């Protein structure tokens, strides 16, 4: 576990002490501010219209953060060093996941200024704010795991970022497809799409279905990353 934390710490510092990390953090918070203004056009002190786009944008953010995890290492020639070091693959995956997710979560933490601003102007329901952030944490972990698997499978950071974004966008799009279907195919499409599982968090509920979905996605990503790394080793 210590090895995993060392890898995570290195990745975390490597992000926030770079212009990329600084730009990403500042840009994301600025975007969340614009999203808040759009949300408040409904003239209601509710933040579901703000959290909703954030869930989507987090996918794009994670795609950019996780591309560095393996693909960047491979391009820089340090991946071989990492894989041949006396560290178990599980620790490498765990370290990379903690590093990527913690980076994204640190950026998301900066958006807390938006709900705070709303509380200074009105009395929003606190429940959906709590569950919104719980949902974002789960989504970040799940999306990061998917991003790691894609990053591990390619040597190009750009391909990794585009691949992760494509996988996540594809999953969101399946939800749109559900609208034109009926019966079991509709249920399947709805269950595959992250959009279906985000709604509860926006309304203030933590349902087993939604939590299991994101944890399951995270587990699938971790297993896939492990398998890809083993094959590369």
């Amino acid at each position: 576990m210590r090895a995993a934390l060392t890898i995570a710490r290195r990745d975390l510092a490597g992000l926030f002490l770079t212009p990329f990390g600084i730009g990403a953090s500042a840009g994301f918070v600025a975007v969340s501010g614009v999203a808040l203004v759009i949300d408040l056009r409904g003239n209601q002190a509710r933040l579901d219209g703000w959290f909703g786009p954030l869930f989507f944008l987090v996918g794009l953010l994670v795609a950019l953060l996780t591309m560095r995890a393996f693909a960047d290492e491979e391009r820089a020639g340090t991946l071989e060093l990492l894989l041949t070091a006396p560290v178990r693959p599980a620790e490498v995956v765990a370290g990379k996941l903690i590093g990527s997710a913690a980076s994204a979560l640190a950026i998301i933490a900066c958006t807390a200024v938006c709900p705070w601003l709303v509380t200074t102007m009105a009395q929003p329901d606190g429940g959906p704010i709590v569950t919104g952030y719980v949902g974002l944490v789960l989504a970040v972990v799940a999306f990061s795991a998917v991003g790691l698997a894609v990053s591990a499978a390619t040597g190009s950071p750009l391909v990794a970022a585009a691949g992760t974004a494509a996988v996540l966008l594809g999953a969101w799009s399946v939800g749109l497809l559900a609208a034109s279907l009926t019966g079991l195919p509709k249920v399947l499409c709805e269950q595959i799409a992250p959009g279906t599982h985000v709604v509860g968090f926006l309304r203030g509920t933590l349902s087993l279905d939604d939590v299991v979905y994101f944890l399951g996605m995270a587990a699938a990503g971790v297993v896939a990353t492990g398998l890809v790394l083993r094959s590369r080793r």
Partner: protein
Amino acid sequence: MTRRVTRRGAALAAVLVLVPAMACQSGKKAAPAGEPVRIVVAGPVGAYREIAIVAGAARALIQSDAAGPLAPLLAARTVPAAEPLASYGLDPPQARVEYATTTGDRILVEIGHTDFDHHFVYVVRPPDRATVDLVPTSVLAPLLARVGIALPSA
């Protein structure tokens, strides 16, 4: 290396700023009650040589002092035409507003019937018939009365 990551950071920031900016522009988000979300026909009245309302054989010229609500003509909502245009009273339209600009162009706006609670009137500006605009009934009712069309009140 630094230059590359700087470029990447700038690209990221640009993407993250552009996405919501485009969302702002799309106008799909709820606007405060009464705030117009779309300009169906731009103003001011002075930009038009003539504005007329036509319904069948009836035609009424709208004098510039009464044409304020028509130029600009503002919609409070825009909805996708989810049903055939006839459902909105737009196929055929019950009336048309014809604008003749000072530069010789013609603009046409087709007027349908009122919505379910009579607060708005459906209108389209051809050739775009994929989206239908909702203009407050209070804006169009007095003008349509001039060509003999009485809109149900809200």
